[in-house]
């Protein structure tokens, strides 16, 4: 019955659904998890690197975290080739804004402009929607630190803690349970790593399967985007006691 409406992104099914958009969201459910947590002094993003093959050269830098502008970064879950297109448009938008106003683009405007692009592909014919969800972490002078989550339909919302990708519902409910208002950035890192360690399929949590990035204000008051190095990340995992020896869990 629903087959007739499956292949068209722009046509509602009789039940009022857009199947292609729902399938796109399904595709994201298979991607590596990414978690974002808003704290009082910064935003934390952690992501799970999916190691597909031992032979694959894992990139030295991040593969799920992208800096959009000096004050905004994002974490991706979904089809990376689609994500690259959207990240590029986001960067262009951010620079266009600074060109016009000589000021950094407010975070929500950036998210909105990207979601407008995503929305377009659910309405204008012949194209498939972007199979990507984003977590945006940023700071602006009007609203301070912010965390946004967006999905393939072009919906977005501001969150205190959010998860996208595989097991996002489990992660989301753990975050809901353990999140406290006025959480410090360090505690947010701990919480994010804990949630990720419990929702990841892999048996042991090591720094080469993880990415950690933070957006915060430096001592001089400038916004800083910092990616945690593998060494520092290993130390954090030990410190928070979330590394599980492989033998124990099997």
């Amino acid at each position, binding site marked *: 019955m629903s087959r007739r409406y499956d292949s068209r992104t722009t046509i509602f099914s009789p039940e009022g659904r857009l199947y292609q958009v729902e399938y796109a969201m399904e595709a994201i459910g298979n991607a590596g998890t990414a978690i974002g947590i808003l704290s009082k002094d910064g935003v934390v993003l952690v992501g799970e690197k999916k190691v597909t093959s031992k032979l694959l050269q894992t990139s030295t830098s991040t593969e799920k975290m992208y800096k959009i502008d000096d004050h905004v970064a994002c974490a991706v879950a979904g089809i990376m080739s689609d994500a690259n297109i959207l990240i590029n448009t986001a960067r262009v938008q951010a620079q266009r804004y600074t*060109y*016009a*106003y*000589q*000021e950094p683009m*407010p975070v*929500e*405007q950036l998210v909105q402009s990207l979601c407008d692009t995503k929305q377009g592909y659910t309405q204008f014919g012949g194209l498939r929607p972007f199979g990507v969800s984003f977590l945006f972490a940023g700071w602006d*002078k*009007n609203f301070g630190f912010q965390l946004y989550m967006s999905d393939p339909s072009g919906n977005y919302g501001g969150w205190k803690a959010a998860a996208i990708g595989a097991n996002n519902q489990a992660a989301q409910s753990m975050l809901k349970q353990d999140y406290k208002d006025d959480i410090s950035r360090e505690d947010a890192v701990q919480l994010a790593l804990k949630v990720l360690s419990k929702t990841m399929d892999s048996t042991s949590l090591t720094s080469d399967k993880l990415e950690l990035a933070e957006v915060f204000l430096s001592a001089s008051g400038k916004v800083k985007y910092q990616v945690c190095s593998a060494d520092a990340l290993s130390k954090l995992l030990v410190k928070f006691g979330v590394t599980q020896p492989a033998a124990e869990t099997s």
Partner: protein
Amino acid sequence: MECVFGLVGDGFALVVADSSAVHSILVHKSNEDKIMVLDSHKLLGASGEGGDRAQFTEYIQKNVALYQFRNGIPLTTAAAANFTRGELATALRKNPYAVNILLAGYDKDIGPSLYYIDYIASLHKIEKGAFGYGSYFSLAMMDRHYHSGMTVEEAVDLVDKCIMEIRSRLVVAPPNFVIKIVDKDGAREYAWRESIKDTTGAPTS
């Protein structure tokens, strides 16, 4: 001939403009308001060809309003100044507007500020500035008497000195001036300085 000038005081900025609509040697009107209230906390004093002035300032005003509706937050004065400059710069190589602009505004976190934008799209943040023939006299008076942190009374006194100098020294001095002010409470008309009363046309707001 045209006189538009402005200055920044302690917690406020003000803009003064003559109110003559002139063509060649004829004065058509002497109650033309050349200072636009751009939004709740911004003033746009403009000099230049009448049509260009009206068209361009209105274009900027509508775009600033559109930004506010779309994004729920107002543009800062600096952002509005840079936007205005950008629009003038793109127009400059196509069909340029002959307008010079003094943009005064008040931002909660920054305080009052004044920007000088001329028709060839240069932008400067200034404490005091002027355009038109009146600038020869108003700039001189402000160089002599301006100091930072002026009160409204001191500033208006200086404005009156400038107007007096223009009226006594400039051959083609305009008769009437309007003074507008912007501070934490918003942008508003402060006073008129009229030496002749124009009863012919309805004043533009």
